């Protein structure tokens, strides 16, 4: 049992990076998703067209490819130095999941019945008021369950950052495994357990949000 304690201690030093990347990625991907989702329903074809292009590019290529691409292209091709690879990882994950999640925002906004828009126009609401007080309050509850699912996806995606050299949970796990080959099963089971413990509140919250989203809404 001693080795479990040893391994946990090693993994603990990587938990910090995993959590930092997770939290920053959640914040930025949410912002990107909101902005991109609203832009896609914009009447300005230039704005919606450009956003559509961004969304398709990032959904159409793989996150792991994007992660490698950013980590080489930013400093090499564009001479952009973000200071730490943490920001490269956050950028890649946020742009990727921002693109996916903008589709939830768009879908939810478009699923608010047209009568609501018409009614708010009849009441002389401005475009901003219409979004802020009529459309979004109804759309957001529809977004919540899927949003929760994507947060779990982001958590899973943070495991990729070890591939560009960040010292996260998996990185320390791999280091420990390379010196204690026979303990590999314990190492990876513990890593999986840590990820599951992080995911568990998100899973339960998502289930709760599914109930909230359905409550008091008349379907059909």
């Amino acid at each position, binding site marked *: 049992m001693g080795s479990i304690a040893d391994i946990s201690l090693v993994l603990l030093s990587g938990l910090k990076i995993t959590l930092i990347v997770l939290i920053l990625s959640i914040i930025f991907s949410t912002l990107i998703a909101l902005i991109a989702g609203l832009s896609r329903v914009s009447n300005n074809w230039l704005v919606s067209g450009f956003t559509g292009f961004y969304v398709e590019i990032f959904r*159409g*290529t*793989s996150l792991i490819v994007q992660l490698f691409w950013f980590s080489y292209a930013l400093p090499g091709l564009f001479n952009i130095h973000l200071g730490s690879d943490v920001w490269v990882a956050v950028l890649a994950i946020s742009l990727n999941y921002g693109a996916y999640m903008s589709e939830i925002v768009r879908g939810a906004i478009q699923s608010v019945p047209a009568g609501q828009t018409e009614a708010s126009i009849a009441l002389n609401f401005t475009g901003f008021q219409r979004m802020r007080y009529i459309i979004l309050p109804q759309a957001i509850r529809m977004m919540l369950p899927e949003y929760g699912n994507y947060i779990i996806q982001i958590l899973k995606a943070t495991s990729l950052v070890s591939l560009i050299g960040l010292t996260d949970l998996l990185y320390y796990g791999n280091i420990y495994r390379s010196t204690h080959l026979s303990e590999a099963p314990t190492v990876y089971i513990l890593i999986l357990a840590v990820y599951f413990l992080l995911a568990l509140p998100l899973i339960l919250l998502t289930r709760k949000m599914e109930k909230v989203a359905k409550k008091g809404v008349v379907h059909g």
Partner: protein
Amino acid sequence: MTWSWDVFFNVIPLIFKGLWITLGLTIACYAFAMVFGFFWVFMSRIPWKPVNWLFRWLAEFIRSTPPLVQLFFIYYAWPSIPVIGVALNPFAAAILGLGLHFSTYTSEVYRSGIESVEKGQWEAATALNLSTKQKWLHIILPQAIPPTIPMLGNYLIIMFKEVPLASTIGVVAMLHIANDYGAQYYKFVEPLTVVALFFLLLSYPSALLIRKLEKKYNRRFDKRTATL
């Protein structure tokens, strides 16, 4: 480091070779996920709570933990587990790892399809004295599976984009070739761009096709409810 079109055009044929491996691996993983998805459905229908509960949480565990760690577990850790441990080659480990991970998703799709079959259909099948096998093969599944085809297609595209994870355990497909090339000539951006382009070229048209299918099935579904 500047962008070089020479390198860009030189690596296209190299990476194209890897495309076939990526595609083959995608299909193999997906076939595994499709078949194994039924296992979870079957297990969650066993009318004994503890077994039910165990398999539901096991599927939840596999679904909500990173496939990359699962791949490492299967490739690096499984061989050193006594008795059941087997050393797999990278290709087999990738099929098992990604296939298992995605089977927890396909099982949810199957489940939603089965749940969408109306209660009356079950009752009618029972009333007609059909055997369990007949009920499933001739009544439930033919109605449950077709509406889920767009969703299953979506997962195929998602899986295609997850397959490069296999390069971390040594499957020599597109991403691995790109990284090898980069390490050899210190040119990473061009080969990685080619890889990204290949992904885009395949996944974007497929996504459009799926959206078309979705519309088609939704329309059919609408019609059916409209006549009720």
